C-alpha cells in the first residue's frame, strides 16, 4: 500500500522535502514506516524521541496500523502561542 508522508517545521529542513511517499506491506505499523524513513532520511534519527506522529488529523502512537491512503505527518514538539 502507498502511504503519503508530510513533514512539518524543521523536519522539512532535515529531510529536504515537505512530502514523500513510501510503499509498505498491508498491515504495516507506524513503527515500520519510521524504520524506512530513518534509512531514507538519516537526519530524522536524532529526532526520534521527540517526533510527534499524526495520521490524518489525529495523533497516533508507533504501534498504530496504517491503511491504504493514509497520510502520516511527522513533526517536532508543537510551540503555539
Amino acid at each position, binding site marked *: 500500500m502507498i502511504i503519503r508522508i*508530510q513533514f*512539518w*517545521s*524543521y523536519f522539512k529542513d532535515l529531510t529536504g522535502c515537505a512530502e514523500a511517499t513510501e510503499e509498505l506491506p498491508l498491515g504495516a505499523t507506524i513503527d515500520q514506516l519510521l524504520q524506512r524513513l530513518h534509512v531514507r532520511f538519516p537526519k530524522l534519527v536524532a529526532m526520534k524521541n521527540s517526533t*510527534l506522529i*499524526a495520521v*490524518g*488529523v*489525529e*495523533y497516533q502512537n508507533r504501534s498504530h496500523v496504517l491503511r491504504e491512503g493514509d497520510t502520516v*505527518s511527522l*513533526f*517536532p514538539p*508543537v*510551540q*503555539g*502561542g
Partner: protein
Amino acid sequence: MRRELTLSTAPIHEATLVAARKMSAGMGAAVYFTGVVRGTEESQTIAAIDYETFREMAEHQFHKLFDEMERRWPTIESARLVHRLGVVRVNEPSLWLEIIAPHRPEAFAAAQWLIDEMKRTVPIWKRPQP
C-alpha cells in the same frame, strides 16, 4: 458553548475583537489573554517569529480542546481564539483568547487550561527570525 477560531496571517486587532464581544445577561466574567512576541527567544535577540501550522489538524485539535473545555466547565458561554500565522514582529500579538463565563474562577481556569493544552497538542511551530 459558542466557539470562534481564527488562524490567519492578518494582524490581531484586539480592540476590534473586544468591541465585538457578545455576552448574555447571566455572564459576569470575561478573561482575555494576549500573547505577544518577545524580543528574545532562548536568550537570543530576535526581530520576529514565523509561525507555521498544519491547518487542518490544528483546527481539528482546537475543536477537540473546545469540546473538552465544554465538558470540564459547562457554564462557559463562549470561547474565541485567534492565532496569527506567518511572520509576527516583536511586540505584536501572536495569540488572543477570550473566555466568557458566569464567574471568574472557571473563566480563568479554562483560559489557562486551553493555552496549556494548545501548547501540547495543536500543530503550530515557531521559527525565530534574527
